[in-house]
């Protein structure tokens, strides 16, 4: 709708919006720094949950309500739980020493390279316009309000596009998920116990 675009461009942000953004940004930054710096993998996973919640808040702030819900359910509910499950399953939930630097000079170099990349992105964005594309190529975010019972809004619009414009990609994700499940089962399956002496000695080496 051209009306909402006009509204976006003309109105100034109110102080609750600024407050929400600042709080969410603080949560995201603290969480992401926690992922990188925490010594315990469990703490890193919980910091990741914190970051994901902050990103979900910013999704809601930008009218992506459905994606915020999916973000919480899929990321925080499934992916991080899978991480925690593997951490507990392997028993690696203890502190590691991250003070020692196995490869000398690697950390300063990594920070310098990443900051150069960040500065490049920001400089490129500052000299050019953030948005140079055409508006509403696929469809508007808020659907057309045709009648009192016709679905409108962002989830309806997203579903409509997923099952029309992106139908092939959507079906391809189904195939991708099946492949991932089969791959995980094949990887996790123990090899059938063949009576070879080396196989037995390998099994006795395994931790309990």
């Amino acid at each position, binding site marked *: 709708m051209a009306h909402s675009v006009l509204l*976006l461009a003309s109105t100034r942000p109110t102080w609750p919006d600024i407050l929400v953004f600042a709080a969410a940004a603080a949560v995201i930054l603290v969480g992401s720094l926690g992922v990188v710096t925490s010594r315990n993998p469990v703490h890193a996973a919980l910091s990741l949950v914190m970051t994901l919640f902050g990103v979900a808040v910013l999704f809601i702030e930008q009218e992506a309500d459905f994606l915020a819900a999916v973000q919480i359910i899929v990321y925080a509910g499934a992916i991080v739980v899978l991480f925690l499950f593997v951490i507990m399953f392997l028993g690696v939930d203890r502190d590691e020493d991250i003070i020692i630097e196995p490869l000398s000079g690697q950390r300063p170099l990594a920070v310098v390279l990443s900051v150069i990349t960040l500065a490049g992105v920001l400089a490129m964005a500052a000299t050019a316009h953030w948005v140079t594309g055409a508006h509403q190529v696929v469809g508007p975010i808020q659907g057309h309000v045709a009648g009192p019972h016709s679905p409108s809004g962002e989830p309806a619009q997203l579903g409509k596009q997923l099952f029309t414009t992106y139908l092939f990609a959507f079906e391809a994700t189904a195939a991708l998920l099946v492949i*991932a499940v089969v791959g995980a089962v094949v990887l996790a399956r123990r090899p059938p116990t063949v009576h070879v002496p080396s196989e037995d000695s390998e099994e006795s080496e*395994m931790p309990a």
Partner: protein
Amino acid sequence: MSLSGAWYLGLAAIVFTIGAIGLLVRRNVLIMFMCIELMLNAANLTFVTFARMLNDIGGQALVFFVLVVAAAEVVVGLGIVVTNFRRRATTVADDLDSLKG
């Protein structure tokens, strides 16, 4: 209405950088995976921001696909980590040097 998109894009760039630093610096494979998730989330935030700025639902549809790919990637990646842990009892990337000449 919410803030201008530049704020969101700047925040996403910073989160992406933090994830990249973590991926380069950390040795634990599990934490490296979490840093990849951070970078994917920064990209998702960028997609949603551009979707709002251009009033185009295509950006949000792409976030949906990124979520699916991230889920599949984590499943297979953690399967590899578990399989590898059975053989070598380590999740540190430096210890996986069997191919070293």
